[in-house]
């Protein structure tokens, strides 16, 4: 009953090809965007912007970047944080050394540089797959972190290696306030998600999935494996690079190699596994899970009478509980939150009937 689909018939291929074929979905999306762009900045407070919404948005974007590579093209990677670091440091150095370069242009160029680095580390994918490729991309993680800490040129000879990011000025407007940073990040993320959604539904997206599902058959119908794989690394690298810039400039406010260590790569990997491999929406759901759940747990533990468990152990206990929850969830729903949402939507379409 929520979905009145009667009468919504596709009379052309173009109509059937729409990302959201049902009117209810389209209306829902516009309402959600309106809520995120108008209501949230109006209602939200600084804590929500800085501690919850910004990491959620940036990690969603990073998740999408990795999901294009792993969930769609089937290439495993543990180098996500390295490509984020390349993007962030490239954008920082471009801002520093090219006077008058607009901020968004340096973000995009940072993404392009991250894409080139990702292609370089993606070259082994032409020869090896699966876990072996995972190890090869792990090299990116160590090499990039080493290069950024070893050569002080990248950090502008800063003694501590931690640099305060420049103010976020775009077309004369200052986006440095928490609300501004949220809006800037939201806009970039929405545009890149739209492009990503189009991409996975295009010929290239189909070719990626073909390579993922059965690479011999893919090459036999004329798909060039090396082009498809390297494009996956490049586009994934671009997304991760832009996410890295946003992470450093908009979320952390500092640019430092240690913001992009191996645990960040794992975090992005968890997001796409929990959210759902081969899904665009799943990245947002997975990021929300990763960001919100620890906060929720912390608040729940805060309700316990003080002194019952000491605070150091409390933190460990939270981590253990969080880990156990992830395992329990993946046993219940190995295909991730996106699948859960899909099933819920399927039910909603025919509700109150069951079949």
């Amino acid at each position, binding site marked *: 009953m929520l979905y009145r689909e009667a009468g919504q018939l596709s009379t052309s291929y173009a109509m059937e090809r729409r990302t959201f074929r049902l009117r209810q979905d389209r209306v829902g999306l516009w309402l959600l965007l309106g809520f995120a762009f108008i209501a949230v900045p109006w209602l939200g407070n600084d804590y929500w912007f800085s501690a919850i919404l910004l990491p959620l948005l940036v990690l969603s974007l990073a998740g999408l970047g990795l999901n294009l590579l792993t969930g769609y093209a089937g290439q495993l990677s543990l180098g996500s944080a390295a490509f984020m670091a390349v993007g962030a440091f490239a954008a920082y150095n471009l801002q520093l050394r090219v006077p008058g370069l607009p901020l968004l242009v340096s973000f995009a160029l940072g993404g392009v540089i991250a894409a080139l680095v990702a292609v370089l580390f993606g070259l082994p994918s032409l020869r090896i797959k699966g876990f072996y490729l995972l190890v090869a991309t792990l090299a990116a993680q160590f090499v990039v972190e080493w290069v950024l800490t070893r050569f002080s040129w990248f950090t502008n000879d800063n003694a501590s290696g931690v640099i305060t990011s420049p103010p976020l000025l775009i077309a004369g407007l200052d986006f440095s306030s928490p609300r501004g940073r949220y809006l800037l990040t939201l806009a970039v993320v929405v545009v890149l998600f739209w*492009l990503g959604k*189009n991409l996975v539904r295009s*010929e290239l997206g189909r070719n990626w*999935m073909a390579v993922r599902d*059965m690479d011999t*058959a893919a090459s*036999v*119908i004329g798909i060039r494996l090396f082009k498809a794989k390297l494009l996956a690394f490049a586009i994934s690298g671009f997304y991760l690079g832009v996410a890295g810039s946003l992470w450093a400039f908009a979320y952390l406010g500092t640019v430092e190699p240690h913001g992009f260590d191996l645990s960040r790569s794992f975090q992005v990997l968890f997001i796409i596994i929990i959210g759902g491999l*081969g899904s665009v929406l799943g990245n947002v759901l997975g990021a929300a899970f990763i960001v919100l759940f620890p906060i929720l747990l912390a608040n729940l533990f805060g309700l316990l009478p003080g002194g019952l468990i000491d605070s150091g152990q409390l933190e460990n206990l939270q981590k253990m509980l969080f880990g156990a929850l992830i395992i329990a969830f993946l046993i219940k729903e190995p295909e991730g939150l996106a699948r859960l949402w899909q099933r819920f939507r399927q039910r909603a379409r025919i509700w109150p009937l069951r079949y």
Partner: protein
Amino acid sequence: MSATTESELLRLDDISLSFKGVKAITSISFAVKAGEICALIGPNGAGKSSLLNVINGVYQAQSGSITYAGQARRRMRPHQAAERGIARTFQNIALFKGMSVLDNVLTGRNLKRRSSWVEQMLRLGRAPREDDEQRLHAEHIIEFLRIHPWRHVLVGTLPYGLQKRVELARALAAQPRLLLLDEPMAGMNAEEKGQMSQFIRDINREFGTTVVLIEHDIGVVMGLCDHVVVLDYGRKIGDGTPEQVRANPDVIAAYLGTRRSRAESH
């Protein structure tokens, strides 16, 4: 016999293939005429699938040459074979399991696209019109093979016989000149075999596609094919029309002979 005639689409000369010293194919030569249905038969391990893999570049032959559409060459990559109009299906279904029937068929048309991925991502330029064209063509194939009720279903959830048909549709979507079918009827019952034979014959007649297929059911082969090549232990032991092959004493001894000897033992 050695002169290439106009009507030959494919010609194998002295092809040999071995895997680390184990000979899979030993100096095989034969020719396939344009527009015919040619069967490769032989016992298990005779080298039939290996031969198909050599024809479309999945394996590279150690010696010999392949002449396709008038051009001879030693080596070819699978995507080059696809670009030159060779399509194939696999013995163990090689569909893209995470994709719908329609998407599987559309991947078969990936070589017909001219728009770049940037145009497709931004949905600008040639992309939208091309999307319509490719969809229309894919729909023709889907209807031709009567799989339209399942076009939006994930292929992994379809029954075996239908998956075989989807794989045929994907190969056909590329509008191939030469279609290689590796056991298209394996594991099917008599009715499904009849249906599949009919589809192959229709493809051959309506699109003029040359077909090379591997099949174990001799009844089907004799009824469907114009030309039969018999392999045994990587060698060619028979080549000709179904009638000629049926009368060939070597073929009877090596292949069909097992049945006669069993009959004699009764």
